[in-house]
């Protein structure tokens, strides 16, 4: 009985063996003259810029996921639509097949509605444009910085010292010699 599946085994063995046989045959006769240019990406003979592996926009991922909703729908509804009429003519499972089809479409529609409400159908997702509105109830443990309730920082020393720390004082007056070099006569 299981001998019938020997066809599959032979098919697999021949298929895999064919590949390795030809690769081994090619390794015997082909010339191998590698050049460093053969390992570089092909850009019409120009100097390649960057890598050949290009990142795609992550938004295509959402599109591909949403496509599954419609792709699965098409893949299942076509055979369902083909046999539905004969199922009704049969008279036994027609009503149930119809109800199940409608349920299936309904579930997929729920998925679509979820994606739509979440805004994933928008190509331009401008999260940054939405105004950030902090929660009216304070988060436990959250402390604003700088803390508005705290006392203002105490500055020690004269204000001139603070200024001189931020900006080096320039020499004042024509007679002030620079610290480096010799003064010009």
């Amino acid at each position, binding site marked *: 009985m299981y001998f019938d599946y020997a066809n599959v085994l032979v098919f697999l063995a021949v298929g895999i063996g064919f590949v390795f046989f030809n690769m081994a045959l090619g*390794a*015997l*006769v*082909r*010339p*191998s*003259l590698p*050049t*460093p*240019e*053969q390992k*570089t990406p*092909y850009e*019409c*003979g*120009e100097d390649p810029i960057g890598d050949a592996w290009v990142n795609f926009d992550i938004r295509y991922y959402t599109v591909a996921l949403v496509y599954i909703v419609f792709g699965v729908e098409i893949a299942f509804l076509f055979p369902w639509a083909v046999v539905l009429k004969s199922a009704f003519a049969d008279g036994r499972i027609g009503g149930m097949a119809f109800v199940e089809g409608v349920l299936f479409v309904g579930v997929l529609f729920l998925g679509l509605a979820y994606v739509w409400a979440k805004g994933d159908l928008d190509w331009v997702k401008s999260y940054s444009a939405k105004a950030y509105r902090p929660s009216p109830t304070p988060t436990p443990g959250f402390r604003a910085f700088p803390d508005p309730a705290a006392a203002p920082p105490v500055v020690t020393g004269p204000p001139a010292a603070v200024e001189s720390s931020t900006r080096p004082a320039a020499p004042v007056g024509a007679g002030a010699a620079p610290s480096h070099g010799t003064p010009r006569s």
Partner: protein
Amino acid sequence: MGLLEHRLDENVLTTRIDWLINWARLSSIWPMTFGLACCAIEMMAVGAAHHDMDRFGAGAFRATPRQADLMIVAGTVNFKMAERVKRLYEQMPSPKYVIAMGACATGGGPYYKYGYNVVKGVDRVVPVDVYVAGCPPRPEALLEGLMKLQDKIRRSAVLRKPGLPEGALFVPAPS
């Protein structure tokens, strides 16, 4: 180098295998889609229906050097392009062949004397197998160049050691 390439002496087995490999190579020379000047128009005519380069198994113009066996340098090679020609040639896998098509690619052509930016022959950049004369050559001339290249491949030694007397299996093209 392949494990058996150019390793075996000449006997009836190696000559037959060489004949088979050479027949396979010369019957599927895939050129690269690569035109530099007006000779490329004639090259397109060769690839089109009337002259039909595909009769010789060379009609599959590949858009990448990775899949190409033959580079038809069709047109004027200036110094800016010679750099690219060299790189494209080196990106092709072996065995690879070059046809210099037309007077410019052969030796500079009409730009030989005053062409300050023209390479005086593409053989200063890449090794050329067949030169096709003409300015531009007729499509028939390019077809003859292709047949010359096929003769060259037909004579080449694959498993046999190079330098042995050629021509045991060489059948000249019918005249």
